[in-house]
C-alpha cells in the first residue's frame, strides 16, 4: 500500500461576526469595534502561527420585518482600513478581507489591495463576494443595478480586470536613479485597456507592483457558478462544509474541476469555516457546547429564526411554547433582508411540517427546536480530541485546513492557541515557525510571476 504524503494543515482565524454564533452576552465578551479587540485577536493568531486572519463584510445592516435586526452583534469596521492597521501590530499573519465586487470599481479596489500588500509586506488576500440586491444598493451611487443572474458575470470580469491592473506594473519600472535623474524606466508604466461587458476602462494604474504581485484570491460562493469561478480563478475557497462526508464530497467536486482550467490540485486550497468548543475533557466540552448553543439562541433569537422559515411576524408567539399552527407565507417578498440565510430554506412548507413533527415527538418548545436543529459546533472536545479530529479530517481530504470562528471576542482563540496548536505541532502537521514573509509562502502558493513561467514552460 502506498501511503499518501502527510498534509500540512492551514489554520486561520475568523474575527467573530455579526450573527448569532457570536455570543455577546457572555461576561468575557469584549468590544466588537475597538481596535484593541482586533489587535488582541490578530496577535493571538500570529502567536499561534496561523496562516491568516479573516474578516467578513456586510454593506447594509440586516433587517427583519422592516426593522434593523437588533439581537446579534451589529456594527463592524471598514475592511481595508482595519487590515492596514493590523499590519502594524503583526509581522507574518496574512490579512484576508471580504470585499464586494458589486458595489466597488476595479481601479479603486486594485489600488487598495496593492497598497495593503505593500504596507503589509506581502500579506494581503481578497475574499471576492458578489451581491445583487437592491436593498444593499440603496447605500451606493449605483443603486441595485445588477440582475441576479449577472452577478458572477460581473464578479469574474471584475476580478479579471483587477488582475490586469495588478499586472500592469511588472516590478522593474522604478529606477529612482538619483545620479541620472531617471525615476521611472518607462513613462507608460501601469498602462491598461479593458473593454468588456461590465467595464470599459483604460489609462495607467498608479500603484507599482506589490510584493505578492497580486493578493491571494478567496472565493466563498457555493453555487455551481461559484464553484466554477473558484476552480478557474481562486487560490482558496472559504467553504461551509466542515463535516466528514459533506466536506469530502465538496473537496473532491471542486478539486476535480481544476484540470479543466489547466490547474493542479495544490493550486486551490479548501478551507471551511469551523467553530469549536474546548474543555479539559470531552465530557466537559460537550456540556459547555450545549451551554454555548443555548447562549447563541435566546428566546427572542429563536422566534426571529422561525420567522425566516415562516416569513411572517411571529412576535406574539412564546419561545417556550409550541410551534405555530399557521403555515409559512410563501410569497416572494421576504421578511428578512440583507442576509444569505433566507436562501437556505427552499421549501418552507416542508420545513415547517418537518419541524412540527420533530417538536411534537421530542416535546420541544420553539427555542428547543431552533437549538436542536441548528448547527452543532464543528469541533467539540479536549485539546487532544480536537487536534486529532482536525488532523484526521485534513488527512482524509475533508479540507486543507480550517478557518476557525470563536464565539467570544476577542479572547475566544486564546485557549486554542495555547492548547490545540502545540498538539498539532507535536503531530508534525502544523508549522512551528513561519517559513517565509508572505501569505503565499504560508499557503504554499507560487508567486503569480513564477506560476505563469511554469505554465509557459510546461
Amino acid at each position: 500500500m502506498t501511503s499518501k504524503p502527510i498534509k500540512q494543515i492551514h489554520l486561520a482565524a475568523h474575527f467573530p461576526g455579526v450573527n448569532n454564533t457570536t455570543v455577546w452576552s457572555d461576561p468575557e465578551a469584549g468590544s466588537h469595534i475597538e481596535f484593541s479587540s482586533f489587535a488582541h485577536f490578530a496577535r493571538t493568531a500570529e502567536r499561534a502561527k496561523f496562516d491568516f486572519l479573516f474578516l467578513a463584510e456586510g454593506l447594509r445592516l440586516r433587517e427583519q420585518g422592516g426593522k434593523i435586526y437588533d439581537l446579534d452583534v451589529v456594527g463592524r469596521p471598514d475592511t481595508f482600513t482595519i487590515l492596514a492597521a493590523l499590519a502594524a501590530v503583526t509581522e507574518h499573519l496574512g490579512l484576508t478581507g471580504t470585499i464586494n465586487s458589486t458595489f466597488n470599481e476595479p481601479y479603486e479596489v486594485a489600488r487598495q489591495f496593492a497598497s495593503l500588500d505593500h504596507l503589509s509586506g506581502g500579506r494581503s488576500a481578497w475574499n471576492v463576494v458578489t451581491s445583487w440586491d437592491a436593498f444593499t444598493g440603496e447605500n451606493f451611487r449605483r443603486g441595485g443595478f445588477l440582475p441576479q443572474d449577472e452577478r458572477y458575470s460581473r464578479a469574474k470580469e471584475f476580478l479579471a480586470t483587477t488582475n490586469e491592473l495588478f499586472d500592469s506594473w511588472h516590478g522593474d519600472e522604478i529606477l529612482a536613479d538619483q545620479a541620472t535623474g531617471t525615476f521611472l524606466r518607462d513613462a507608460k508604466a501601469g498602462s491598461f485597456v479593458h473593454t468588456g461587458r461590465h467595464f470599459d476602462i483604460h489609462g495607467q494604474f498608479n500603484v507599482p507592483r506589490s510584493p505578492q504581485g497580486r493578493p491571494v484570491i478567496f472565493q466563498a460562493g457555493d453555487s455551481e457558478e461559484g464553484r466554477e469561478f473558484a476552480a478557474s480563478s481562486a487560490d482558496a475557497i472559504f467553504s461551509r462544509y466542515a463535516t466528514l462526508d459533506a466536506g469530502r464530497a465538496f473537496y473532491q467536486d471542486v478539486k476535480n474541476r481544476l484540470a479543466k482550467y489547466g490547474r493542479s490540485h495544490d493550486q486551490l486550497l479548501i478551507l471551511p469555516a469551523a467553530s469549536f468548543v474546548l474543555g479539559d475533557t470531552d465530557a466537559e466540552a460537550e456540556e459547555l457546547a450545549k451551554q454555548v448553543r443555548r447562549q447563541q439562541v435566546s428566546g427572542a433569537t429563536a422566534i426571529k429564526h422561525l420567522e425566516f422559515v415562516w416569513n411572517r411576524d411571529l412576535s406574539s408567539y412564546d419561545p417556550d411554547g409550541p410551534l405555530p399552527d399557521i403555515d409559512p407565507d410563501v410569497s416572494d417578498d421576504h421578511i428578512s433582508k440583507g442576509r444569505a440565510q433566507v436562501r437556505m430554506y427552499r421549501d418552507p412548507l416542508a420545513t415547517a411540517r418537518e419541524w412540527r413533527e420533530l417538536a411534537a415527538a421530542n416535546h420541544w418548545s420553539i427555542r428547543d427546536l431552533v437549538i436542536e436543529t441548528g448547527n452543532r459546533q464543528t469541533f467539540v472536545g479536549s485539546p487532544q480530541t480536537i487536534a486529532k479530529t482536525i488532523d484526521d479530517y485534513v488527512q482524509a481530504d475533508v479540507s486543507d485546513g480550517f478557518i476557525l470562528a470563536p464565539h467570544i471576542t476577542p479572547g475566544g482563540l486564546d485557549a486554542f492557541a495555547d492548547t490545540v496548536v502545540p498538539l498539532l505541532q507535536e503531530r508534525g502537521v502544523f508549522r512551528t515557525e513561519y517559513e517565509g514573509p508572505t501569505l503565499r509562502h504560508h499557503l504554499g502558493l507560487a508567486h503569480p510571476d513564477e506560476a505563469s513561467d511554469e505554465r509557459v514552460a510546461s
Partner: protein
Amino acid sequence: MSSTPASHLHLAVALDGTGWHPASWREQVARPHELFTAGYWADQVAEAERGLLDFVTLEDGLGLQSSHYGELDGRTDQVRGRLDAVLIAARIAPLTRHIGLVPTAVVTHTEPFHISKAIATLDYVSTGRAGLRVQITARPNEADHFGRRTFPPIDLEQLRSPAGQERLTDLFDEAADYVEVVRRLWDSWEDDAEIRDAATGRFIDRDKLHYIDFEGPHFSVKGPSITPRPPQGQPLVTALAHQTVPYRLVARQADVGYVTPQNAADARAIVAEVRTEQERAGRAGELLHVFGDLVVFLDDEQAAAEDRRARLDSLAGQPYASDARIFAGTPAQLADLLRELGEAGLSGFRLRPAVTGHDLPAISRGLVPELQRRGAFRTAYEADTLRGLLGLPRPANRYATATA
C-alpha cells in the same frame, strides 16, 4: 475642549512622496526606493509627532502624478506612483499616539458610504485622531479609470472661463453633498446605541440608529452606516481652496480650510471671503480654522536654503512653481512670517516640505523650538483627540433627541 492659548498657532505638515519639489527625490536624504514601504511613512509621521504637530495630511490621487493640471505629462524624471492615503494613515495609526492623521480622499469617483466607514475606522484605530481631506478631480484620464463618466479635456485657463467655472461648481457641489453624506453616516449611530441588554436579548437599541435618507442629483444614500459612531463623533473634515467656489465648500462643510495667500493682505482678503461664505452657510458661530499653505525650504542660514532651492530647480530643469507661496529661509524668518500671516486672520499653517527628509526635521527640530521660545506653540500635546488639539468640541449627534 482644548486648552490651547489663543496666542498659539496650529501646525500641520503635508506629506507627498519625497517632498513637494519635483527634484526632491534626488536628494541624499530622500529615500525614494522606500516610498512604497510602511517604514518610510512611519518614520515621517514619527518625526512630525516629535515636533508636536497637530496633524499630517497625506496626498493622494486616482491617477499618476502630473505636472499638468488636466492631463498626464509622460515624464520619467519625477516621482510617479503612490499608495492609498487612507491605508497609509491606518498603517501608521497604531505606531503613533497623539498626532492627527488626515488622508486625502478623492470624492469625484468614489462612494461616500465607503469613505465614511473608512474614516470612522481610522478614527477607531487611532483612538480619535482621524480626519479627511476631500479633493475633487476634473481630469479626463482619471474619469477613464472608472468608465462611468466622460470628462472633457481641461486646463487651468479653461477653468477660469464661465463654462469651466460651471464644471467646477458642479464638481464642488457634488463634493459638498458627499461630505454631507459622510457626516450624516458618522451620526447615523447614536453614541449609546449599543446596549447589550441581556434581559431583552437586544445588542443595540435600534431607535438610536438612523436612516440618513440623503437624496441629491449625484447619488442617494439610505444608511445607517455599518460602523458605529467614531470616537470623535465627527472626524475632522478639511479641504484645500483657491477661489470662491471651493471657499464655499470649506464654508459649508469643513473644519479646516487650507488657503494659499501670497502675503498678509492677501490672507486678510481670503479670510474675509471665507467668513462671508461661512455666515451665508449658517455657520457663523462655529469654529472654522483657516490655515495657510506654504512650501518651505528651511535651513539655519538663509543662503543655504536659497542655494538648496536653486540647486533643486536646476536639477528639475526649471524653477519650481506652486499654488502656495514658496518660502526659503531660517526658522526665525519663517516664525516671523507665520506671525505676520497669523495676525491677518490665519489660525494655523499647513507646511509643505520641499524635501521631506530635510525640511520635515527642520520644522520639528528648528521651527517648532523657535515658536515655543516665542510662546506661540505647544510644548506638549494637550488633548487626546485631533478635534481636541484644534479646540473643536465633540459635536452633539444631529439625530439624537434630547431626553430629560
